[in-house]
């Protein structure tokens, strides 16, 4: 079996790419010929109804601006306290990392790790990696490490949960409100803005970035 693939693996891979502008539905494997989409138009699969492609008005420059804004807001959302509780004049507030370290100390390390990953490391990695790719794409170039970065972005995609956390803060406020004085702190507003930004650039089709900056022969 191995003998077959030995001669010039790279050459064989080069020929594997199909030149015609085709598109395959990820959900059912139906093949389509690609057509240019009008502004705001989306293409859906005729067999299974999944989204195939959507038109993108945003250029790399605009996307980069969005990602950099998200980075600033992300830093604020993490640095500022989220909520303050008051009881008998005593006050307790926490940040995201306060929550993560506290769960660790309370013998809930699994929860601590889940929160650190889905609310801090993965969103941060997503913002930084996307920013890195776009920084170079703006100049029409491929960023160093483009390939592994794009693959990492693909796998990171389902594991960022900032929007769930914002809903969680809301539920916590309502629950705590029964017994305590609750003051939402700037962190929660930064989080709300972050979620809006994340929703906007969640629409960025990673597959389009592959085409935006074509590979150059070295």
């Amino acid at each position: 079996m191995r003998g077959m693939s030995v001669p010039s693996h790279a050459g064989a891979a080069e020929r594997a790419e199909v030149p015609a502008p085709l598109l395959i539905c990820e959900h059912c494997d139906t093949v389509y010929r690609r057509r240019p989409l009008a502004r705001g138009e989306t293409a859906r699969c005729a067999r299974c109804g999944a989204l195939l492609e959507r038109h993108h008005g945003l250029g790399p420059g605009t996307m980069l601006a969005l990602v950099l804004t998200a980075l600033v807001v992300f830093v604020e959302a993490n640095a500022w306290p989220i909520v303050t509780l008051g009881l008998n004049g005593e006050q307790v507030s926490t940040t995201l990392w306060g929550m993560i370290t506290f769960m660790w100390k309370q013998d809930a390390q699994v929860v601590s790790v889940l929160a650190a990953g889905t609310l801090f490391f993965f969103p941060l990695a997503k913002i930084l990696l996307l920013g890195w790719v776009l920084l170079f794409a703006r100049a029409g170039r491929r960023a160093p490490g483009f390939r592994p970065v794009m693959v990492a972005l693909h796998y990171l995609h389902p594991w960022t949960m900032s929007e769930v956390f914002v809903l969680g803060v809301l539920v916590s406020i309502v629950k705590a409100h029964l017994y305590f004085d609750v003051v939402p702190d700037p962190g929660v507003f930064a989080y709300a803005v972050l979620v809006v930004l994340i929703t906007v650039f969640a629409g960025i089709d990673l597959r389009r970035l592959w085409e935006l900056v074509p590979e150059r022969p070295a």
Partner: protein
Amino acid sequence: MSALPRAHELGLIGCHVCGLVCRDAPVPDAACPRCGSPLHRRKTASCARTWALLIAAFILYIPANVLPIMRTASLGDVDDNTILSGVVELWVKGSPDLAVIVFTASILVPLTKFLVLATLLVSAHRGSAWARLQRARLYRLVEFIGYWSMLDVFVVALLTALVQFGVFSLVAPLPGVIFFGLTVVLTMLASMSFDPRLIWDGRSDDD
């Protein structure tokens, strides 16, 4: 089926990672020329992996619901909350709207995921042609709603960090929340390892 040809009928294969359309070469360990990921027609051992993850998730789901997820103590008064009792408390004392949201995220969504994925697995295994479009839609729904179940885990974590008033009021996490967090991760992995292309395949081929 010539109007809507499928990839294997044209000798094509779409990269699962970057979407590039490639020729389906009869080479073992073929890799995508654009992103370098291994090319395969269907997700590897999709049904077996999805079953394994789904069953593991279901096993953990039992202690996640039976065991309390959070302890609230105030002036010697100790109260242990399960997921369901948390929803009830929210309904009675807080806001019914949020109780509905938490009930949906913590109870309805995980149960829907178990039911939908098991149905998809059984019907895909049989190569059933029954309600294909509806099954495809159900899969996309499950993929979309899955991670919202983490809601209760974050609520417990945040309340624990905030409610620290010594003898007056304390909140601590209990093992149920750990099982619940793991259940959510496992159900997410299960829905990711299911290959929706199998819904449209005549008989199950799992390579």
